[in-house]
């Protein structure tokens, strides 16, 4: 088992820490130099340099901004990897997708009903923000399990709008 299992978008990478200038990525040793200034990071490796900012962090998640893109990174240490191994077989619950408000605004219209089947890209509701009507779409196909907002109500950024299963 690797020290860390890192998930970035669709990539899963194993990482082993060797010392402050050496790391193993997918079992390949890499030399690097990394300096931090609070949340700012300056990395050089393979003769390339990168500049990144850690935007937020929790027990096993880091949000990193690099090259003007934002990446949500899941970092599983040994404990998490082990516990996942044990619970894997019991985890038969269907995967839920939570649709959150991308910005504060007013729910103008809800376009789906509970129990309705939705496809990837289906419009779920119309959120008015910044004087624009924005269609909130889903990235996942599934069944609408729960609708947690009502039309004409205000929502904050990050509020759960709809749960798809």
């Amino acid at each position: 088992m690797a020290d860390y299992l890192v998930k970035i978008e669709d990539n899963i990478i194993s990482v082993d820490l060797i010392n402050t200038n050496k790391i193993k990525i997918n079992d390949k040793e890499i030399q690097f130099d990394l300096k931090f200034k609070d949340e700012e990071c300056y990395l050089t490796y393979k003769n390339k340099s990168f500049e990144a900012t850690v935007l937020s962090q929790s027990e096993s998640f880091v949000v990193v901004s690099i090259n003007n893109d934002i990446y949500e990174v899941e970092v599983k240490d040994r404990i998490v990897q082990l516990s996942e191994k044990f619970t894997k077989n019991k985890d038969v619950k269907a995967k839920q997708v939570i649709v959150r408000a991308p910005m504060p605004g007013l729910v103008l219209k809800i376009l789906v009903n509970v129990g309705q089947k939705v496809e990837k890209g289906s419009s779920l509701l119309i959120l008015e923000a910044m004087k624009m009507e924005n269609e909130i779409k889903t990235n996942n196909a599934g069944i609408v399990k729960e609708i947690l907002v009502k039309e004409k109500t205000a929502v904050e950024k990050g509020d759960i709008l709809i749960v798809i299963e």
Partner: protein
Amino acid sequence: MKKIKKILIANRGEIAVRVIRTCKDLGIRTVSVYSEIDQNLPHVRLADEAYCIGRATPAESYLNKQKIIDIALKAQVDAIHPGYGFLSENSEFSKMVQDAGIIFIGPPPEAIEKMGDKISARRLVSAASIPVVPGTDAPVMDLNQAIEFGRKYGYPILLKAAGGGGGKGMRIVKMESELTSALRSAQSEAQTAFGDNRIYIEKYLENPRHIEFQILCDSYGNGIHLGERECSIQRRHQKIIEESPSVIMTPELRDKMGRAAVKAALSANYRNAGTIEFLVDKQSNFYFLEMNTRLQVEHPVTEMVTQIDIVKEQINIAEGNPLSYSQSQINFRGHAIECRIYAEDYENNFLPSIGKIKKLKSAAGAFIREDRGVDEGNEISVYYDPMISKLIAWGETRDIALKRMQRALEEYKLAGIKTNINACKWILNHKKFVEGDFDTHFIENYYNPEIIKNKRDEIIEAIAIISTIYLNNQKASYDHTIKNKDVSKWKSKKLEYFR
């Protein structure tokens, strides 16, 4: 004729900064106004005086006409510059300013009324024998009228708000069955955005280019144009990349369209700077679309190719002087391009994104200009337009300008909020854009967010290294704290083991 010595800028962000800069160049004193949440913005710092005008909601601050005029009187300014957006195209405000004995740096109220109302503008310019897109010359009162129009001219048709632009209250209708809901939602959006739910209908031109002309008119009936801006690269009906000249422009066509633009403006007894927008089809037929009776967001590209400071000319005209240039004195040199950097999520339909700018490293170098109204540490809020910055590059040729813009975008580093920087880079690299073969449907035809985000192995590896080391360091310092506190043996051992 009155010399302007002090100006209040009734706006915020980058355009307020832009106007203040020219005022400083001219030795004119400046007054900024700001809403409570904007107190820490650059436009407040840069002005000679700054006044808080109320809460964040535009209606309580930047749209509060009386309050702005009261401050202008108190600060004893000679003139008010409205920037763009907010009160810039509000004829009532222009009149109130005038009545208060203050110069409005912009057109007279009558001209704003004539040109600001899109329906009356269409009537006016078609009377001056300038071609317009077929459309209703009165607001559509009911669904039947809309249905009738669609049957007469054929689909697609375009619903547009009579009261304002910016893509608000605008809907493309591809077939009759979509008309009912499209009309209803356009009306409600227009009502919210402009307090005016009147909608009119136009035949929707397929694959047009959006090309506009910058014009200047003085108080003596003189008008000139400063050439065109190609603004076809749009998303959500809002421009993101503009350039001058347009790749399709010839000196003959420029002359023809420029004359039409000046004629259109003079037909409304226009004064000061303005923009005439045209749609241009594949055969280079052009149709008047609308007039913007104000300084335009993308005016810097014109400044770069003409070397004319448009804000300076606005002030000159407002002082009652004749135009500083005749048409034959206007020369175009090289190529300029502008990218608007927005706080938005290019992976999710360009939805606005908000938050604090944690890091901002701008671009510099030869022939790069930046107009920006926020700094590192400032917030992009839900209350105002989410534009962060305008980057402008100039080159002797289009190719050189494009390369310089690429270089600037690569230097630019912004963290904390999602931006469209990488989407701009993608557009600039796109074969069709580089070849100049595009129209207003460029984004919907070619855009695919999935290919923009950098997923090269080296980036992914870099992120993996940074994330693990960062978290590991955090845990290490946490362990350290716990050890020093001498907690139970079991806990520290466990942490030690997994370190």
